[in-house]
Every structure is written in structure tokens, then in C-alpha cells.
């Protein structure tokens, strides 16, 4: 009796907590990442209140945040703390771990025809390091002096010296510990994804038959493996400077009434190390979102993704170039102007593969048969934000133009649209599309429509006006714009942004509600709700360890045979053998050197 009960306990423990099943781990990443995302969003709403209504008292803030907002007004220190943790959470916890963690885990084995990840145990570790990392980051909000407050880029000396800002005490130490755990999590996950993609593809799943989602996840993982260790070294050296009296980043500093015994270091070194991760990080966020969108757009246009090989090529090109552009964050740091010129050149090159992607999306929609599922709407939204935000990147990437818009709201608008919105839209699109695979239930479409349109309108309402702030010269990370007469006509613009931010945040309640309601009470998912070609829709709706009850299906064609002439249905699953004389589309398109037809 007791033995049975014990066994049952273990079942629960190993099914839901210490699971090594990639589908469960995907759900764990999704839930943890989403909760972190909500925290990050809430923070942005709070500091937007201060920016929209500077100095005005909101008793509710004092009620919930006590000494962070004395008399209901957020304090300048805590404003910076919120900005910092908002950025950290959104970039790393939501759009890196939340996005890749959810979809790489869910889709890599399912779309490739693998029973699980190469190492289920490492995968589990990856999640739990992420969980620990999230806990430490949240805990840092409650320590003396508050959390890290030097901006999400935590440039030293501000982040290195507790005298510089209260958040650079215990809060910063916890930030570093949290990021170290996060990097371990990311590396364990990424190595696993790479090994799985290279080794565990089912029979017939050649590289050019893989869905673009997998290509995107694969290259994202490679980016992570190559760049996160550099961030690790950056924060490790910072840790040394903070705790052991080294001066890697410090030199000639007088603070807190005395000259410090630090000599010979340079903050610029930190900036180089940080942005060597920091820029590929942008694509660690974007590529999975673009991969998801490729899949969603093709499926719902009932057309093959246009230029499959060009899409792969552009992913590879973007990934490669992303390692050569980090200096565009540093044009005006005092870096040698010649280096600035080199980085301008490489940076603007990114626009070429990005343009290829956009035109390929547009051509995919052309003469399609477009089904407006909520996932498809968010995918269309992503194409729009990717264009809008990408184009202003041409201004920021040009060093001569960057001089005057660097670190202004123009930058804030740009990266929130191109990275924040695109990443989030891609992730949400993926949730709507693969919810049946995650939870075996369907999401409500009407709430989805409502969610999309409110989010879309609010997003542009928040981020587009920021370009005008930037062109007026308003710097980012200002607690208020009230100290400069030159900004006095922009108060109503800030208020407008804040109003849209609140609407946008409230709109996410539709999504939240839809997700939780549907997990428990949603209609059961059918086998293949979107009439899709890929392998994940051949697995049973109820999760099954090992994914397929019998043999793993064999793959005979690429993932994009939608509306193929001569076929009865408007889609042909990858498992259907090629008809005699039928062209294998995975071998068409741009030729690869050395490839045999």
C-alpha cells in the first residue's frame, strides 16, 4: 500500500518536476518564461507611469512597493532599478530562455522525428538552472540597496562600485550570479539542440528537408554556444573587480570621497566583451521568432515558403555577420574611429539578408489562400514590426548618424520594435500555433483576435512615438524629461506612450486568460488542426514519452508541399512518399556546391 503510494509520488515528481521529457520541459520553460515576462511587463508599466506623469503621486505604487515609491512617486534610484531588471528579464528570461527554451525543446524532437533530446538529463538540468537563475534574479529585488540599477548592459564602473549607485551592492552580485546560472542553462540547452539536430533526425530527414523552424533553432543554438561564454567571462572579470580588488575594467577613479587603488583597466574592454554576446543575442531572439513565423506563414498561406534555401542562406548570413558588428554599440565610446568605420560597413550588410527574408515572406503571401488564425495574425504583425524596426536600424548602424541619436529614445523605439515586438510576436504566434502540441487543447480564436488587434495597436502606440522623442534629442534612461526646457513640448507625447503601454499590458490579460482557461477547459485538440505537413502533427495528442507509439515515421519530402498541383488535399505530409515522377522540392532552388541531384 505504502509502497504504491510512494511510487505514485515519484510518478508525479518525475512527470512534472524532474521530467526529462522534452515536451514537459518545453512547458516548464513556457510557464517560467511567461511569468518572468509578466513581471518585466509590469515593471515597464510602473516606470512608464513616472515617465508619462513625472512626479505625480500614485498611492497604489506606495501600497505595493512601499519605500520604492515614497508618497506614491517612484524614486530615481528605483526607476533605474526597474529599467535595468525590465531589460534583463525581457532580453534574457522571456525572449531567450522563454522563446528558445519553449520551442526548441518542443519542436526539435517532434519535427525531426526523434524520441527525445540527445540528453534528456542535460535538458532537465538546463531548465533547472534557468529556474534557479530566475529565482535569484527575482530575489535580487528584495535585497538591501535594491537590484542591479546600472542598465541591463551593466557597464562598469557604475556596476562595479557600490558607491556609484545603491543597486551595485548585493543586488549586482545577485545579478551576476543569476546570469552565470542562466549562461550554464543556455549552454546545456544549446549543446543539446545542436547534437539532436545533427544526430537524431529520422530516416529521410535530410538537412534540406528540415522545416525552417529547426534551421532557426539550430543556428540560434550555435550563436548561443559561441557568444554566451564571452558574456560569462565578462561578468566573471566584473565579479573579480567587485570582490577581489582586480582592475580589469577600472582605472583612475575617484568616488565616495577617495581615489581608488585601481590602475590600468578599461571599461571599454567590458563593452567589447559584453557586446560580443550582446549583438548575437539580438539574433538569438530574432531567429527563432523568424523561424516560427516562416512555418506559420507557409502553413496558413497554404503555400510553400518562398525561397526555402534563400531563407536558410539568410539565416546563415545573419548569424555570421552578427558576430562582426558588435562595435556599432560603441561608435562614440572613444573607440578608434577607423574601427567605427569597419563596424558601420559590417552592420549595414545585415540589412541584405534581412531584406531577402522580408521579400520572401511577402512573396509567400502573394497568391496564397490565407487563413487568419491568431497565429497567422501575429506572424503578419511580426513581418510589419521587422520592417518598421529594421529600417531605422539603417540609421543607427551608420556611425555618422549614430552620433546624434545614440542612446536616445530613437534607439529605444528601434530595438523595442525590431527585437522586442518581433521576438514577442513570434513567440505568441508560436504559442497559438503549437498550443495543441503543448497542452493538447485549443485556444479560443475570438480572444486571440481581440488579443492580436489590441496588442498590435498598443505596440505601435507605445514604440513609434519614441522615434520623435529621439529626434528631439531625449536621452534614454532619464527619470524625467522635466529638467530641460527643450523637452517641455513633449510631455503629452510621453503621456500618450504611457496610456498605450497600459492598454498593451492590459491586452495581455486576454492572452493570459485564454491560455489558462484553455489548459483546463479548452476543447480537445484534433490530430492535425492546421492541416500541416510537418511531423509533430503525426504524434498522439496525449503526450507520450518517446513521442510515437510505434515506429518513428520516415520522411520522403520537404516540409512545404502546400497546394501542390495534382494533389487532392491542399497539403501533403512529409511522411507521404513522392509519387513517381514527382519533383523532390528539397533539392530545388539555389544550388549548393558539391550537391548531387
Amino acid at each position, binding site marked *: 500500500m505504502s509502497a504504491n503510494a510512494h511510487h505514485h509520488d515519484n510518478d508525479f515528481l518525475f512527470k512534472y518536476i524532474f521530467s526529462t521529457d522534452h515536451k514537459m520541459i518545453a512547458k516548464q520553460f513556457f510557464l517560467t518564461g511567461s511569468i518572468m515576462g509578466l513581471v518585466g511587463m509590469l515593471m515597464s508599466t510602473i516606470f512608464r507611469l513616472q515617465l508619462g506623469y513625472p512626479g505625480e503621486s500614485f*498611492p497604489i505604487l506606495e501600497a*505595493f512597493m512601499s519605500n520604492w515609491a515614497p508618497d506614491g512617486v517612484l524614486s*530615481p534610484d528605483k526607476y533605474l532599478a526597474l529599467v535595468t531588471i525590465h531589460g534583463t528579464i525581457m532580453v534574457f528570461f522571456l525572449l531567450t530562455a522563454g522563446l528558445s527554451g519553449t520551442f526548441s525543446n518542443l519542436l526539435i524532437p517532434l519535427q525531426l522525428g526523434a524520441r527525445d533530446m540527445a540528453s534528456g538529463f542535460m535538458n532537465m538540468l538546463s531548465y533547472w538552472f534557468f529556474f534557479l537563475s530566475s529565482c535569484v534574479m527575482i530575489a535580487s529585488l528584495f535585497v538591501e540597496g535594491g537590484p542591479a540599477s*546600472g542598465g541591463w548592459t551593466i*557597464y562598469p*564602473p557604475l556596476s562595479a*562600485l557600490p558607491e556609484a549607485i545603491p543597486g551595485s551592492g548585493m543586488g549586482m552580485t545577485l545579478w551576476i550570479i543569476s546570469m552565470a546560472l542562466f549562461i550554464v542553462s543556455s549552454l546545456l540547452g544549446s549543446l543539446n539542440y545542436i547534437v539532436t539536430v545533427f544526430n537524431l533526425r529520422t530516416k529521410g530527414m535530410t538537412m534540406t528537408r528540415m522545416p525552417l523552424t529547426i534551421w532557426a533553432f539550430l543556428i540560434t543554438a550555435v550563436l548561443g554556444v559561441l557568444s554566451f561564454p564571452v558574456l560569462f567571462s565578462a561578468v566573471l572579470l566584473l565579479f573579480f573587480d567587485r570582490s577581489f580588488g582586480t582592475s580589469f575594467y577600472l582605472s*583612475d*577613479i*575617484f*568616488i565616495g570621497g577617495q*581615489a581608488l587603488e585601481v590602475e590600468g583597466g*578599461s571599461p571599454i574592454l567590458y563593452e567589447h566583451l559584453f557586446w560580443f554576446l550582446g549583438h548575437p543575442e539580438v539574433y538569438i531572439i530574432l531567429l527563432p521568432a523568424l523561424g516560427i513565423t516562416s512555418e506559420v506563414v507557409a502553413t496558413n*498561406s*497554404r*503555400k*510553400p515558403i*518562398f*525561397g526555402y*534555401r534563400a531563407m536558410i542562406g539568410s539565416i546563415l548570413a545573419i548569424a555570421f555577420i552578427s558576430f562582426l558588428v558588435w562595435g556599432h554599440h560603441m561608435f*562614440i565610446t572613444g573607440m578608434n574611429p577607423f574601427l*567605427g568605420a569597419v563596424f558601420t*560597413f559590417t552592420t*549595414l550588410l545585415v*540589412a541584405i539578408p534581412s*531584406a*531577402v527574408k522580408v521579400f520572401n515572406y*511577402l512573396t509567400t*503571401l502573394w497568391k*496564397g*489562400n*490565407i*487563413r*487568419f*488564425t491568431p497565429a497567422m495574425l501575429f506572424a503578419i504583425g511580426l513581418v*510589419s514590426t521587422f*520592417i518598421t524596426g529594421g529600417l531605422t536600424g*539603417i540609421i543607427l548602424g*551608420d556611425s*555618422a*548618424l549614430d552620433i*546624434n541619436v545614440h*542612446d536616445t529614445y530613437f534607439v529605444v523605439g528601434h530595438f523595442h520594435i525590431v527585437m522586442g515586438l518581433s521576438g514577442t510576436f513570434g513567440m505568441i504566434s508560436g504559442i497559438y500555433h503549437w498550443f495543441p502540441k503543448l497542452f493538447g487543447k*485549443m485556444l*479560443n480564436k*475570438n480572444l486571440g483576435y481581440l488579443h492580436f*488587434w489590441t496588442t498590435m495597436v498598443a505596440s505601435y*502606440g507605445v514604440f513609434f*512615438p519614441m522615434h520623435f522623442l529621439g*529626434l*528631439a*534629442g531625449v*536621452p534614454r534612461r532619464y527619470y*524625467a524629461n522635466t529638467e*530641460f526646457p*527643450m523637452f517641455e513640448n*513633449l510631455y503629452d507625447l510621453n503621456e500618450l506612450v504611457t496610456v498605450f503601454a497600459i492598454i498593451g499590458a492590459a491586452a495581455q490579460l*486576454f492572452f493570459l486568460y485564454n491560455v489558462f482557461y484553455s489548459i483546463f477547459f*479548452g476543447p480537445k485538440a484534433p490530430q492535425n488542426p492546421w492541416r500541416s505537413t510537418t511531423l509533430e502533427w503525426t504524434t498522439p495528442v496525449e503526450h507520450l514519452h518517446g513521442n510515437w507509439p510505434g515506429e518513428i515515421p520516415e520522411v520522403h519530402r520537404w516540409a512545404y508541399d502546400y497546394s501542390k498541383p495534382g494533389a487532392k488535399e491542399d497539403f501533403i505530409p512529409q511522411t507521404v512518399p513522392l509519387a513517381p515522377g514527382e519533383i523532390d522540392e528539397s533539392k530545388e*532552388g539555389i544550388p549548393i556546391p558539391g550537391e548531387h541531384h
Partner: protein
Amino acid sequence: MLELLILIAVLVGIIAVGKVIRVMELASSLKGENSWQATDRDHKNQARLMPIFLLAYFAFIIWQIVEWGGEALPVSASEHGVVIDQLMDTTWIIIIPVFIVTHILLFYFAWKYAYNSKRKATYFAHNNKLELLWTAVPALVLLILILYGLNIWNNVMEPLTAEDEPVEIELYARQFDWTARYPGADKKFGDAGVRFIEGVNFLGMDSTDQDGWDDKYVKAEFYLPVDTPVQFYFRAQDVIHSAYMPHFRAQMNCVPGMVTRFNFKPTKTTAEMKEITGKEDFEYYLLCNKICGAAHYNMKMVIKVVEQDEYDTWLSEQKEFLAVEGMQEEPSSDDPVETDSTQTNIEEEELSAQL
């Protein structure tokens, strides 16, 4: 109490939405539909929203331009800034049409090719010529922009030489104020470093260096003569700051442990700019544009651009370093002449090197 009310309101709201969903689900299941599959009506409605959204988006942008376009920085007050603004305009001329055309295509296709069960999508998977087209055209356009931009960048970042006879100014940043230092009559900055900071000598001037005795420093506002090139040197005492002078299209970080540089030639006096902008209280500002702590948002200096004679008069009225009260005392005896690693004997190193 307030929290409780909010909590109740949220809960009631959630329950209400849940009931509405339930009703919608029941209604659709009565019609033989389900709550997740887009119906013909959905496709029609969503397709209609596409052009509506596009128009609303464009209208929103136009409204913003009308409302706040005028708040953009006025015409550049520096020589190189005019060139930068031309590059900016050229870039806008390239990206705005791309923005408009791609958005029209995106939302037009979405509206035009909305789902219809009687129609089949066109199977169109590859076309290498098209791919080549939209690889080559952006590449060409970007190449032009890159060459144009780099040409300007190289000119802007070109250091001044002694032949330009620049006014030299050191901007010194610390939490949370700015100080401008002028080299005085000998046109040489005295050495300075954080080791020398003591009492009123917050700039860390080495009082044994005679070059510094006639240096002048000012806070709150500093003057520039119009139509004379200005060579700036930037130092920071504690954390990274950034000297941002948006009206002159000028910005450079101030980094502890190193001296950074930027130069420009102001072309419009403050008085002229008041006329151009029509604002009586117009001032040029130096802002801090790198997060540096709690009062970062209020770290500023007013820049007055004036005619040469007014500048000369103003400068002559400023006290010399040695005349400032408290500066005459002996330097601390423990390290009287120890040289500091970041002495700012800039004028010798830099200018003579370029001659």
C-alpha cells in the same frame, strides 16, 4: 483597502470574461462551428481589418509628424552637423518609400488573398532570379549609403591640428555635474589626475604643474566663440558619462581612465538660434547621455555660443586656477610630483604629433 478593491475588481472581471467565452463557445457549437477554427466569416472580417489597420497606421504616423515633427532638433548649429543632417535626409528618402511599399504589399496581399475554400493557393516555391534581384538591389543601395556615410564619419572624426587654431576645452564629468576647463593664456592644460583631488581641487589639478596655474574652469554654463573650431577633451572622474550636445550633432563618452575627443565648429550663436526657433528662452545644452546614477536625468550645462569679442570678454572675467580660493596651498606632501597615468597634457601629445 484599495488593494482589496482592485483584487475584487480583477477577479470579477476574470469571471465575467470567462462567462462570455463560455457563451460564445456554446453559441458557436450550436451553429456547428468550434471555438478555434477560423470560419469564412472570420476570414472575411480579419481580411477587412488589414487595409483598415494599414490606413490607421499610416494616419497615426502622419499625425505624429504633424504633432511632433516640429519638436525635432532645429537646424544644426555646427558645420559638420549640416552634413550629417543631409545624410539623415537621404537615408529617410531611401527608407520611407521602402517602408510604405512593403507595408502596402504586406497588408494588400493579406486582404486580397484571404482564405476561400473554393480557391487553391498558387504553388510557387523558388525563383532564383527574384532572390538575386532582392539581394542585389538592397546590396547596391546599402553600398551607396555605406560609402556616403563613411566619408562623412571620417571627416567628422578627423582630429583638429594646431593649424586650425582651435579653442580647446576639457569637459570633466562626475556624478552629477559637468565642469568645463579652458587652458588659459598659455594655451596649455595643466596636468590633472584623480590622485590630486583634494578639497576644492575637485578637478584633480596638479598644482606643481605651472601650465595649469592659469587654467580656468567654469560650471553651470560655458561659452564658445562662433565660427571657430572647438577641440573637446573629455574626462570622467567616477563612472562613464556621455557628453551629448544634440544641437551640434555631437556626442562622445567620458570614460574613467582615458581621455576621449570630439571637435566641431559652431556656426550659430545662441542669439541667432533664438530667432531661428522663435523661442525666447532657447539655450544650447550639454546633457549626460550615459546612465550614471540617480540624478543622471539632471546632469547638464548650458552652452552659450557668442561672437568672438563677447567670448574674449567672458573668458577674461573667469578666475585663473591659482586665484581660486584654497588652491594656493601646498600639494599633499606624500606624493608631490608622482606622475599619474592619465595626465592630460593633451596639447603637447596630440597637437604636436599631428604637426
